[in-house]
């Protein structure tokens, strides 16, 4: 199954399960969880069912394009459902079946893996799903987001589509993955991995990034004061990415790391509280739908 077909199959499957399709959020982020479609929408009592692809940037994971499994920019296929349905495990396993994975031919396991995103003040409980020993999905029941307890609880499914596709296509290098019938992942993205790895590790301007971090933080605070949590959240995401780049340049000491994570978390918490308060003022409109 080619990469684009895998995405389309998951889209169709989750739409059939009542999710609406969303699109990638256009600010750099480390994971699909950080998209407002998950981070903000998991807050409060309003029901929510969404599926989307989120390109994810993790500068320190770059390997100059040469490691067959590691990329500094890759995709996450994200599903968020609130409240978590009682049969969600079976529904999830159904998504593997439509991808052509005959469950009885494989070793499927739910291996404990509790999840935590310190910069988002978020924690969850769940598993890594193993397919023949390989982690293919992170399966999480959110317990807390932005420091706020989740009620009801959302369930988040995060697929690694590259891993799944490599498995389904039986290739051992991301570059050999067929993206479509006539072009490979490598042909599309190898050069990008090379250049971004070099930029992330070797050339990014540390001083500029430090200034950007400070500026983004100031702007986030000002925007929170203006009671505009949605735009403020954009600047929280920008802070986070600036921090990740500083990290990949080796410019963050352990103490600084802790301190910067706390600063970002504090912003995320304020955005979450403000967003939730405003939804409440609006009478939680999606409860009416």
């Amino acid at each position, binding site marked *: 199954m080619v990469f684009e077909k895998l995405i389309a199959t998951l889209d169709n499957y989750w739409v059939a399960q009542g999710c609406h399709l969303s699109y990638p959020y256009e600010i750099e982020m480390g994971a699909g969880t950080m998209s407002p479609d998950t981070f903000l929408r998991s807050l409060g009592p309003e029901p929510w069912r969404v599926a989307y692809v989120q390109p994810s940037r993790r500068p320190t994971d770059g390997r100059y394009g040469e490691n067959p*499994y590691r990329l500094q920019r890759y995709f996450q296929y994200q599903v968020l459902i609130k409240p978590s349905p009682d049969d969600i495990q079976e529904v999830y396993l159904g998504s593997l079946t439509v991808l052509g994975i005959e469950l*009885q031919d494989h*070793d499927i396991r739910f291996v*404990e893996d*509790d999840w935590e995103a310190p910069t988002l003040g978020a924690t969850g*409980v769940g598993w890594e799903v193993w397919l023949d020993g390989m982690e293919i999905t992170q399966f999480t*029941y959110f*317990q807390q987001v932005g420091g706020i307890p989740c009620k009801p609880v959302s369930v988040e499914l995060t697929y690694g589509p590259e891993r799944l596709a490599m498995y389904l296509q039986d290739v051992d290098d991301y570059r050999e993955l067929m993206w479509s019938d006539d072009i490979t992942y490598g042909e599309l993205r190898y050069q990008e991995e090379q250049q971004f790895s070099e930029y992330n590790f070797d050339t990014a301007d540390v001083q500029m990034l430090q200034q950007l971090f400070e500026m983004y933080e100031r702007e986030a605070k000002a925007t929170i004061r203006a009671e505009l949590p949605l735009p403020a959240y954009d600047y929280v995401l920008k802070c986070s990415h600036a921090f990740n780049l500083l990290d990949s340049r080796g410019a963050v*000491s*352990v103490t600084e790391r802790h301190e910067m994570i706390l600063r970002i978390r504090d912003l995320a918490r304020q955005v979450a509280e403000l967003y939730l308060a405003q939804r409440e003022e609006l009478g939680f409109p999606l409860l009416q739908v």
Partner: protein
Amino acid sequence: MSADLLYEIGVEEIPANAVLPALEQLEAGISQALADCRLEAASISTYGTPRRLALIAEGIPERQPDSVGEYKGPPAQSAFDEQGNPTPAAEGFARSRGVAVSELEIRETEKGRFVFVQVKRPGQPAAEVIPPLLRQVTLELTFPKTMRWGDRDIEFARPLRWLVALLDDQVLDLEIAGVRADRISRGHRVMGEKMVEISSSSAYLAQLAANGVVADHREREKMIVEQANRLAEEVGGHPRIDSGILTEVNFLVEHPTCIRGSFAPRYLELPAEVLVSVLEGHQKAFPVENPAGELMAEFIAVTNAAAGAADVVRQGWERVVVPRLDDAEFYYQHDTRQALVSRLESLKRVTFLKGMGNLYEKTQRLAKLVDWLHGEIGLADEAMRTTAQRAATLCKCDLVTMMVGDSKLAALQGIIGGLYARASGEPEPVAEAVAEHYRPQGPEESIPTSPAGQLLSMADKIDNLAACFRLELIPTGSAAPPALRRQAAGIVEVIVGAEYSLRLSRLIHYALELLPLPANEKTLSLEQAATELQEFFAGRVQAAWEQRGISYDICRAVLGVPWDDIVDATRRAMCLADLKQADPEAFTELVVAGERPARITRPESLPDTLKVDTSLFEHPTETLLLAELTAAQQKVQAALSDEEPDYPAAGEALRSLLTPIHQYFEDVMVMVDDERLRLNRLALLSQIDQLFSRLADFLQIVPPVS
């Protein structure tokens, strides 16, 4: 007539390490609850998989036995008037117990005459009594971590999805977390039917087995070991099964099928520790060894798949294991490109504890500490001093390598440092000391074998403890975190195991003085920290002794007199324990001899300067006791002056004082009114008490009943 109970809690996969503790709680809770309701079961067994906690209780009475309750009412005087007619008090009491006034009786008690009534309570059917018990025990199960799901408020290890509750063939009326109990269980996710209708508790295991679930975890463990052995034998090896990994994988599967995978032999060039860690830590697989004990390019994984899927599954596993080995190989090559010592600079950027500087500074302290320890213990080997100092400098460098930075390989800290020290051309003893300086990390792990490793182990741990106590990061006493207790226990084990005589209080002070002045305000003063830390150690010393079979009272007795030299204190504790074991009579005599002088002199808070004045003696027994005491003092002195003190000989000398002490108390009245005489007599007894205190505080010992 009796009935059998089947109770199965169906869950989404709960963490492997939570299953056994939950089963133990379930068994204990239900067994207790049944007994409390007079429905004791003849036998109880439990079964656990990742998706189910199950219990079968056989031989439960079908009904509770009838019982009679007796209740005390008001005093007879106020319950009946002079004519013997009931008053409102009697009527009210009868009503509250649901009986007629005529059933009340009057009985004499120690406090006078009271109204009593006996109420017959018919036993309830087990089917009605048991459901609330199951519910309560289930909700009271504790897990390392709990969660909420959906829009429910209940917390459990993972979402609760089904319940089977059968008494014989009858479904019990029970609901928990919106789930109603039924007779429908679930089969294996891919090898069985989704719904399995359970007919009775006796059919439970067989019906699940027919649906791909081996519910009995003991049975699964046997299957895993048997299959792993067979697969390894096929390639002429045997599996290296870590018991922790075995338990973990056992509770990750409902039907174990082992597969054997292999990898390219070149990965065998990786250090064995790394290879094993990759297989066990990342993939929870068993390494395979050849008959010579060397690792082979094979591994055994425990899967939850059907046997027919083995080929596909094996390929999948190999595809996962190889990149992990690749990572490790990459780390190793990358890390060893630079000398270990060159990483010292990076340690400056790693905080040790907030307010206690960075790791580079810590290694500088460690170098000073091992140097100090070398001198303090009086070790002769000067080359070892240099080795320990070098190892101290290098021992934290591996924390900033890629290998240890990989969270799944982080447990290799120290070991990796040793490997990299060797690869960097450091002398072998330095590499060895670095490798073993975290040991012992628990009661099962032995202390470092090399003297330099032993010094460094103590230095590292005392520095951690001193910093945490100075920063007041730890609640003291039994609430102290296990990690801190292990650190102190580790030091005690090294001191006792290597017989390093030194004064603990001096080590504590020196370690505290080396620390930077903490910047934040909430700290203990150096003296407070030293006192609390010393107290903390007393608990660890006692635990170490109790582990060696020394009784609680002997521990307290030895810790009741100065125990700063733990080696010496341990010898005293062992000597008393041995004597108690070998010659209980002699032990009792020693204790009795020691406690009488202590009992009479200690409450008097005598001045230290008090001397015995023989001119004040009135009885010959006084002269005799002084002579015996002097002789005993000389014997004790002789026995304890050697490098290896002879505590049994000292104990024998003390015991010889028993008769003169007894005689003394027969003949001499100590607490006389004449103060000079009284103080003089107390002075003599006080000297005896001091001599006994060279061994222990005998007041703390509970003499064995002879």
